[in-house]
């Protein structure tokens, strides 16, 4: 088995701040994903990466940057945090079939 680790677990930021979320996986999966989860709206794809140094935009990429410098890690940057924003960001990795999820990073913007 493997595990996906997300850091930090909780992130509190100020309006306009640049914030970075990190994800590590030891499944040796090629593909990794970042999703945003808002209450009552399910999960929406922000970015995904099919291999090291590859980046693909999802449905919600505006306002975010991503980085995949190593196969095992995938970072997401909120380029300018929005006031009163609250969401959970979930990282996932996949083999050819299934996606495996990390525990999430909870973002609160004051």
């Amino acid at each position, binding site marked *: 088995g493997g595990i996906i680790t997300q850091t930090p677990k909780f992130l509190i930021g100020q309006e306009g701040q640049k914030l970075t979320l990190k994800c590590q996986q030891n499944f040796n999966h090629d593909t990794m994903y970042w999703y945003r989860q808002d209450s009552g*709206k399910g*999960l929406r794809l922000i970015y995904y990466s*099919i291999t090291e140094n590859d980046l693909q935009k999802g449905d919600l990429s505006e306002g975010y940057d991503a980085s995949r410098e190593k196969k095992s890690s995938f970072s997401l940057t909120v380029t300018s945090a929005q006031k009163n924003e609250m969401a959970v960001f979930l990282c996932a990795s996949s083999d050819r079939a299934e996606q495996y999820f990390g525990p999430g990073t909870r973002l609160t913007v004051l």
Partner: protein
Amino acid sequence: AQSVTQPDARVTVSEGASLQLRCKYSYSATPYLFWYVQYPRQGLQLLLKYYSGDPVVQGVNSFEAEFSKSNSSFHLQKASVHWSDSAVYFCALRDYNQGKLIFGQGTKLSIKP
């Protein structure tokens, strides 16, 4: 357009009762379908999946789901729920080309003692 709809945002059932959580999908071909469960402050865990073949698929913790092409549905069922089944359940469809998952809005399941 591809989409997944879970029409019930919240479902409450009594412990020991049977359960059905509904999921409808829109996809141009036969989809890969999944049910995930999310316990409080945790990530998503896979309950079961459907790729092809027998339309009734078995999952963990005695959950099962039935795929219906004619109804474009993939409803989740359990014969007898336990208080520990309280969680949010997500139905998802896999986009064949991109591999990404398209999620429904989720159904929050509460169990009455």
